């Protein structure tokens, strides 16, 4: 009995110190000048635009990384080809490389003056760095591995028998994928989507390099928080942080609300 309590206390204490108390303090500080002030701070045109941009990042990066993630996991698990191990390792690169480095790398490729292909894009009238396309690329880069990593173990566990059964029953490759494979891995995909969304919402390092942080133009919610903080607008910084935290929380909750309903049967 005693050791059980010790274990629990240890786990809870660790979480409280690292996560609970700091996040709680953000909430407290956001409302230090009252709820009205906090609401006002996050509804200014700059703030609204920042949240809008963050949503754009999520809306583009999450679907693309989900489709890529599922296809990539299928290739890694179901196929044998040269370079499979390399692909598998490459997927983890965004985990290993610091986002700041990712931002700098994007500058080297797409930078307008000395980027590898930036000049060509500039001639076509497409600006990538210090503009939305570059920010989307950065967000996609850092949130790439989650779906792949969540789907691979599920795909392994499900095996190939159901797919083979579908084939003998007359289903073509597309029918088999949409009617058998995808439903079988749906919870892996859903969890991957939640993690990808959370990561895309919170991206800061790579964005701060490639966005240029032009207030009201290329400033996402995280960059907005940093900007307010630098200008000693504590209420603005903390209130925006609260909104970001609530968005992430909502994604996690949405997942937990749908999941038990289906899994209960």
């Amino acid at each position, binding site marked *: 009995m005693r050791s059980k309590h010790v274990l629990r206390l240890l786990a809870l204490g660790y979480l409280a110190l690292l996560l609970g108390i700091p996040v709680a303090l953000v909430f407290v500080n956001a409302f230090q000048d009252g709820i009205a002030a906090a609401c006002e701070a996050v509804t200014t045109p700059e703030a609204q635009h920042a949240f809008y941009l963050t949503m754009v990042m999520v809306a583009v990066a999450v679907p693309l990384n989900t489709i890529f993630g599922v296809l990539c996991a299928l290739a890694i698990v179901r196929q044998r080809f040269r370079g499979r191990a390399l692909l598998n390792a490459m997927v983890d690169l965004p985990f290993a490389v610091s986002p700041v480095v990712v931002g700098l790398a994007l500058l080297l490729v797409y930078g307008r003056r000395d980027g590898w292909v930036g000049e060509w894009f500039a001639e076509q009238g497409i600006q990538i760095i210090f503009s939305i396309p570059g920010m989307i690329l950065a967000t996609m880069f850092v949130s790439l591995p989650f779906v792949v990593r969540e789907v691979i173990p599920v795909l392994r566990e499900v095996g190939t028998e*159901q797919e*083979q*059964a579908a084939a*003998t*029953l*007359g289903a073509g490759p597309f029918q088999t994928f949409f009617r058998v494979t995808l439903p*079988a891995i749906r919870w892996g995909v859903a969890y991957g989507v939640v993690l990808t969304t959370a990561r895309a919402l919170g991206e800061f390092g790579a964005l701060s390099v490639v966005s240029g942080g032009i207030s009201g133009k290329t400033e996402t919610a995280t960059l907005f928080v940093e900007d307010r903080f630098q200008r000693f607008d504590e209420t603005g910084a903390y209130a925006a942080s609260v909104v970001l935290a609530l968005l992430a929380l909502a994604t996690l909750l949405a997942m937990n609300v749908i999941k038990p309903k289906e899994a209960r*049967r």
Partner: protein
Amino acid sequence: MSIVVDSVSKRFGEFTALEDVSLEVRDGSLTALLGPSGGGKSTLLRVIAGLEAPDSGKVLIAGEDATRKPPQRRNVGFVFQHYAAFKHMTVAKNVAFGLTVRKRPREEIEVRVDELLKLVHLDGFAHRYPSQLSGGQRQRMALARALAVQPRVLLLDEPFGALDATVRKELRAWLRRLHDEVHVTTVFVTHDQEEAMEVAEQIVVLNHGRIEQTGSPRQLYERPANDFVMGFVGPVSELSGRWIRPHDVEILHEPSDGAAEAMIDRIVHLGFEVRVELTLGDGEKTWVQTTRANAQELELTDGEIVWLRAATEYDRVPA
């Protein structure tokens, strides 16, 4: 529909799964592929289904070359050892799958699913999920699912292998009756000789990727082509340097021409069957299977000296 397998070979890296295998399965028959694990029987079944491509050779279904056709265009029913149930679909949706992907009208699908669930005694389970069924029920569902599309041939890969002994026996008898009702050309894989003997009309014995013998259960038992088949399809004892079925040995109280002297070590009563364990003159151990009535008549006792003689000649192969 008939199946013809014409000199099929298949290798997996260094491992030869099938080597120059040829086989004919008559229309409407029930055939067992029997052999030890790793003998190639599952690979052969998967080649017929199109789930494996042979390295060489041909597969003909209903006289038509199917070697290059993908499984979804062969119109075969396939039943897997571990059911391969679609876990996210109800029993009815599982059974309907083949018809749904063929875009058949809803009413037709409903009627057919009802019919099939009755056939496999799962009416009333239509809205359950596979996780709510027992192993035997899941396998019957898989069978209904395979039959739903009216396949030209039905292929079963160790269909009862994952079930416990009682359910196995039940389903075996049931498969036999089902075949009499549905009459679809059926091939099933098993490593259990009793199962093959009980269910199949024709047995194909496979070992090391080659066919050892093809024949009726009785032919295999009484006229095995070689000692592998002899040992695999039934019990054997050794007498005078030859293999013989233990029930084909006669026990005599007196010496006789060609009879070997032996001492009874132990008499085991197994109900109807009696096992007599003996040591031959040269020190070799052997055993004889006889009936309770015969053992009583002979008044056999432990430690007694007797003479053993082959009762029949035809089913002896050199040891």
